[in-house]
């Protein structure tokens, strides 16, 4: 049995830890809940998530705690804590009998996989920004603003700034997000003329309408085409 856990920001240990054990679980925080002793799967992820699963009830855990958490283990009891403003959420798992306790290092590839299509699109579009339909050149990925990073910052043929936000599916929320980024970016007089492009595998019609009204260009891109695995459809015009 591993000793008491020590938490570092963002990384909680070497990989995911899976425990199959007979245990009882009590939760206190915004409400109180108690699971009587039974056999359960405990999943402690590298990112600080803690999930308590039964062998029923579908994909949803019986109890869970999202990061950032503090995980401590003492005397056969796992204690997971999370600050919620002035209060604290606390998940206390008393291990009566441990049947299995293993760790797996999921490696760096796992983090990319978690980010999924958006991250892949960002990588591909960073390598070939012209796929957005304009003669763009990349200035930086993850361009910082004071409310979060915009996915790509590019310059166009006329050397004007172009901020690109990338989504799997472009919704009205995505338009709002890019609008907020553009507001922040344009506060810099040197970037006052910065344009926005919202790129996605699928652009919702409402998002296209809203983007158009705000002068934001929407572009549909296909990941398989960007990867060169599929030839683009032949079209009469772009």
């Amino acid at each position, binding site marked *: 049995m591993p000793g008491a856990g020590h938490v570092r920001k963002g990384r909680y240990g070497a990989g995911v830890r899976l425990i199959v054990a007979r245990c009882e679980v009590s939760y206190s925080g915004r409400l109180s809940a108690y699971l009587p002793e039974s056999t359960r799967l405990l999943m402690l992820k590298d990112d600080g998530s803690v999930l308590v699963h039964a062998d029923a009830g579908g994909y949803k855990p019986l109890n869970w705690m999202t990061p950032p958490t503090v995980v401590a283990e003492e005397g056969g009891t796992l204690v997971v804590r999370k600050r919620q403003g002035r209060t604290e959420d606390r998940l206390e798992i008393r291990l009566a009998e441990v049947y299995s306790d293993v760790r797996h290092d999921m490696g760096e590839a796992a983090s990319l996989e978690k980010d999924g299509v958006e991250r892949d699109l960002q990588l591909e579009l960073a390598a070939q920004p012209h796929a957005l339909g304009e003669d763009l050149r990349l200035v930086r990925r993850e361009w910082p603003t004071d409310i979060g990073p915009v996915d790509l910052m590019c310059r166009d043929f006329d050397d004007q700034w172009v901020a690109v936000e990338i989504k799997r599916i472009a919704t009205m929320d995505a338009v709002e997000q890019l609008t907020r980024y553009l507001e922040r970016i344009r506060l810099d007089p040197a970037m006052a003329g910065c344009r926005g492009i919202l790129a996605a595998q699928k*652009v*919702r*019609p409402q998002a*296209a*309408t809203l983007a158009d009204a705000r002068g934001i260009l*929407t572009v*549909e891109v296909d990941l398989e085409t960007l990867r060169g695995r599929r*030839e683009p*459809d*032949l*079209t*009469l*015009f772009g």
Partner: protein
Amino acid sequence: MTDTEIMVGSGMKVSVSRDELVQKLSIVSRAVSTRTTVLVLGGILLRAENGELSLAATDMELSLRTTLDAQVDGEGAVVVPGKMLVELARLLPDEDVVIEHRAEEGVVRVDSGAYSSRLHTYNVEDFPRLPEIGAVGTFSVDKDALLDTVSRVSRSASRDESRPVLTGILARFEAGKLVMAATDSYRLSVKETPMEGEAPELEAIIPARALTEVTRIASAADTLELGVQENQVVFVAGGVTLTTRRIEGQFPNYRQLIPESYEQVVTLPRNDVLEVVRRVGVMAQRNSPIRLRFTEGELTVSAQTQDVGESHESLPVGYVGEPMEIGFNADYLRDGFESVTGDDAEFKLISPLRPAVIQGESDDFTYLVMPIRLPST
């Protein structure tokens, strides 16, 4: 745009003919919204005045209005759930129908013979105000020319709402002719039709769906009136008024898309080729292309879909030159040969990766279609 006035808080009561009610409801109900987010758009506005019962429905993109003769015992207006009223009216037992709005109860009572029902109503004040027809100057258009043109080009309009301009048909009225164009970026249909009568020169992008509705309502009508406002287009035919929004935006410059010259111009027996494309195209499933292989004097059409099957068929054609194989979306190719008229069709080709053109015996209709890249091309 001038708003229509709706009388509110009525004691509307009318007697109408069931058959006429059913017929008119079936027309306006096509504009009833199927989206449940705005409840009142699922309703039909009934308004009784001056010896008529008028019906109106709109989904905010398209509105349809018409009237029927009625014995009006109480004037007023009410909005009734559209689909339910249509379904109910069709099943009424007696030829005479009495519709009475009981505002204090929030219901409409529908009586026919021994049948009686009470339908809950929507708030009439929530119903969108439709454009006042009198404020729109309309002019008479050559109905047959317009309907024929719409039927030939409309299938090339896009159904993808993410590019609204492509869901419309560009309509341009010029001296003595009407030009319509539609494209979904994979194919383009353009038709120029001579028109009789005096029509002012104007251009508008009109939703293809609205023009398809116009063909429905105008096909049995004697005349067709058209009016264009800043953001609305109005059609009046057979006592039915259709209004639709104009689509804003820049329609692609279609003239630039049509090639000026071709490597091959093959004259094909239109009906024979169409039958072959239909037959062979059955095997073009899941976006698989239909292949056209031209060799000296012969065209072989084939299609293959993995785990489904393959088919091929040959027919003699007057092709001369190096063999050429080109792939198309089977539906788009079929649409092209269906859209042209005449016994023969000209199939104009440049290369397997360049657009092909299908034209009928007259050159007033052009169907331009992009090929699908074949593995070997």
